[in-house]
């Protein structure tokens, strides 16, 4: 249940960037959420909808893109999608995959007026 804190982080960033760009209204906030970020998307949306009230993001829609879990083998250097949280390289016998994507928690962009 850390989604309320995350929603506050999203709103802070959105209001900050909107203000810097002299926006009157935020129509859409797009996030990038990694598959390994441990975020419950419905809860995040619910939290965001609760705290945005009365701000210029009052009507803002939350759009969430997901980033897959990807690892790079420290031995052969190849990149693989990671299934079932298996961090061993499927091609090298003992290569370990270093996590290069999947933990993203980012505000990607805003649509403002």
């Amino acid at each position, binding site marked *: *249940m*850390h989604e309320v*804190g*995350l929603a506050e*982080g*999203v709103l*802070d*960033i*959105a209001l900050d*960037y*909107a203000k810097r*760009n002299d*926006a009157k209204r935020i*129509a859409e906030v797009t*996030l990038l959420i990694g598959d*390994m*970020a*441990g975020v419950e998307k419905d809860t995040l949306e619910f939290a965001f909808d609760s705290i945005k009230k009365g701000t210029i993001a009052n009507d803002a829609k939350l759009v969430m893109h997901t980033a897959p879990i990807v690892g790079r083998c420290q031995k052969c250097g190849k990149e693989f999608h990671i299934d*079932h*949280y*298996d*961090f*061993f390289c499927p091609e090298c016998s003992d290569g*370990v995959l270093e*996590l290069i994507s999947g*933990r993203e*928690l*980012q*505000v*990607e*962009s*805003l*649509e*403002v*007026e």
Partner: protein
Amino acid sequence: MAVTIDVKADILGKNDAVAEELRNLFKEKHVFVLDLMGSPGCGKTTLLEKTMQALKDDINMAVIEGDLFTSKDADRIDRYGVPVVQINTAGGCHLDAPMIKKAIENIDLDKLDLLVIENVGNLVCPAEFDIGEQKRAVVLSITEGDDKPMKYPLMFKLASIVLLNKTDILKFCNFNLDGATEDIKTLNPGVEVLPVSCSLGDGLKPWLDWLREMVRSVK
């Protein structure tokens, strides 16, 4: 007219900036800082009690206790004469870096070798928050079930050491010790996995040796 603004800002950016500031401070003060995590009731405080018994005469320790509402854990630590600072999150499910920054105002870092931060009992949220620690330790008790590493992957992925606790009651539990160990190592190749019984003090030597080594490594 609608305009798109490119942002690319980390949602936890503020927390992470404070965490980095803390990590630099701890490095400068030569203090090893451990984030101790695990479910409610997995044995984190009992592990700390056994750790203090073994190390407090050789290593200057302090503890930060994260708890939702009570000071029950801090009271247990206080009995060992180790400085302890209580953080009550008032229902919050994890500690964050600004909380630690405030808590260390009450700790003399110049005299410290080891700071253990016992996080709020929870396998989900604490994993997401960098609190300026150098390493993370996770306690999983066998009564929780051997499926938990794969159900809470981030927690186990980011740990440097995992203690499988309560092995003294293994024969009463349907817990596959080898299977759980394999799952943890699949998620996190290279992690140390130690079967222990904190209440009996069994199997703790590798844990204590690891802690001593970590403390030495920051001197």
